[in-house]
């Protein structure tokens, strides 16, 4: 066998990245940031409020968490629904008790379908992050740019209509982008996006429609990733979050403020047998008195003034 000649050609083999979205940068050589009150760690909590239709609309792949069995997949649909009816309120109770504010990547359909849930979110002043129309509306390489622009527009308009303001942040459903997504988001006035997982701090990305800041939305410490995908128990979950906090706190003292992001999924962490782990994590880290609880917009405001 022989591979085509191009297989041994390396057109991007030069300093930095193999694309133009951001320059390479060493986290430990950057200007430091100081959080309000000189806290070492900014705590950023997201609670994903996602709507998975019973009728998955298949593109090249389904969003993780979407329907699994042949139609009608009641087991998956109702399990996701459990999160939006029950689990999320259990999470709110834990956060309320500690006076912590969250942000929520929200399917626009959630705002439209469940006004009581939206009111509970708004009563708590959570920041709403654009998260697509619903979990059928994913972005993927090769999709039509006009269709993608329409999906973004639809999600933002629907969220604005029901929440009263247009989100400035975005988290793509299924954490998936096309080659046009970032540019389209910038055109739609999005200030930060949560898709890329290559850093522990924010950094700026360049698109032809302007700058968009990457927020370090964790995948590694996501409750769904650890307890559903990898099958770990909640004991192990909380142990790892606390280990991350310890390291970030120590770097916060030596290298400037760090961010601990808690990515919460109501149908996962909101189960009765798991919720204790969230309570324990938050009680432990808040007892350090070295944490600034903040929304992504609050974090970015301070980070940009560094």
């Amino acid at each position, binding site marked *: *066998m*022989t*591979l*085509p000649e*191009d*297989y*041994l050609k*390396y057109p*991007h*083999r*030069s*300093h*930095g*990245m*193999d*694309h133009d979205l951001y320059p*390479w*940068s*060493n*986290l*430990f050589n950057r200007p430091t940031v100081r959080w309000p009150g000189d806290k070492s760690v900014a705590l950023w909590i997201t609670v994903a409020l996602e709507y998975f239709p019973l009728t998955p609309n298949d593109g*090249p*792949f389904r969003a993780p968490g979407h329907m699994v069995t042949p139609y009608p997949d009641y087991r998956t649909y109702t399990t996701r629904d459990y999160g939006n009816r029950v689990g999320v309120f259990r999470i709110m109770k834990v956060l309320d008790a500690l006076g912590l504010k969250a942000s929520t990547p929200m399917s626009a359909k959630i705002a439209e379908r469940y006004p009581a849930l939206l009111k509970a979110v708004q009563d708590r002043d959570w920041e709403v992050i654009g998260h697509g129309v619903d979990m059928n509306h994913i972005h*993927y*390489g*090769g999709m039509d740019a006009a269709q993608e622009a329409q999906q973004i527009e639809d999600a933002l308009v629907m969220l604005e209509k029901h929440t009263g303001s247009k989100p400035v942040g975005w988290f793509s459903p299924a*954490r*998936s*982008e*096309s*080659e046009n997504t970032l540019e389209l988001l910038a055109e739609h006035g999005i200030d930060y996006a949560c*898709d*890329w*997982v*290559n*850093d*522990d701090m924010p950094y700026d990305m360049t698109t032809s429609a302007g700058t968009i800041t990457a927020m370090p939305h964790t*995948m*590694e*410490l996501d409750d769904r990733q650890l307890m559903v*995908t*990898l*099958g*770990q128990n909640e004991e*192990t979950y909380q*142990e*790892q*979050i606390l*280990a*991350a*906090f*310890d*390291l*970030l706190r120590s*770097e916060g003292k030596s290298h400037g403020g760090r961010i*601990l992001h808690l990515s919460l999924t109501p149908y996962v962490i909101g189960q009765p047998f798991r919720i204790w782990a969230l309570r324990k994590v938050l009680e432990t880290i808040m007892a350090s008195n070295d944490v600034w609880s903040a929304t992504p917009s609050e974090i970015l405001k301070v980070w940009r003034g560094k």
Partner: protein
Amino acid sequence: MKYDPEHYDYWPYQNRPKIVWPGGKKVAFWVAPNIEFYELNPPANPQRKSWPRPYPDITPYSYRDHGNRVGHWRLMEMMDEFGVRGSISLSVAMCQHHPEIIEACAARKWEFFSHGIYNTRYIYGMDHAQEQAILTDSIKTVETATGQRIRGYLAPALTHTEHTIDLLAENDFWYSCDLFQDDQPQPLKTKSGKKLVSMPYSLEVNDHYAFNVYGQSARQYADLLKRQFDTLLEEGAESGTVMCIPLHAYLIGRAHRMGPFREVLDYITGHKDDVWVTTAIEIADYYLNNCYDDALKSIEAAQREAS
């Protein structure tokens, strides 16, 4: 296609010539950080897809980029603290993309060996000349960047051809990390007759397997590495063993994993009388000069006995 790889004969883990590492040590311990570059849009290989989703599959791409921006620097500092020099399994294009990392490692006298050009360029389907070009490129690139002549190899993304092992010997490599049949080094059969050592590397204790295949936590991984060491130390009294910890900064370098991993380095390097904290090239060099010939005789005797 061959029924078996034909790179080595069966050689049971009993009654082998005794290996004693320098200073009378029982375990040769080395750490292999894989320092890799994955391309966002690599050309397609007919036998293996680079990314599961259509281009641009940003999640797995950026997940790996984390190692070069964040994790590497944490891991390097921790290894410094315990006096462990890395033997780097290197995507050699890193010499062009991120020379800052290469310079930091070279200044610490870490060893570099080739892990291909990019970890998104697979060897499957290459003809002899193409695979030779990968080795020539690797040798030249690392030599230009660091002055080191590489002597070791781990195929990019563990993709091989039937020629790989022979080509390594022909290009004066000393060792290959590609074969996982043993916890001790051993001679490999090569067409040229040139000496080549199979270097224990271990997939089972690779952080990728621990975290993303077996779903282990940072604590479980730290515990299994200590148990791996305990057994190899016990057996090393009979005949020297090799323990390698293969790592990826984008995995071990995450905030929640560094603390437990620190305990592992502390534990292993704390066994000062028994552990040779070293690099793969030093193990290969010692083995070639002190153990290779005895091993060959023992393997030949085992073959004669079997037939």
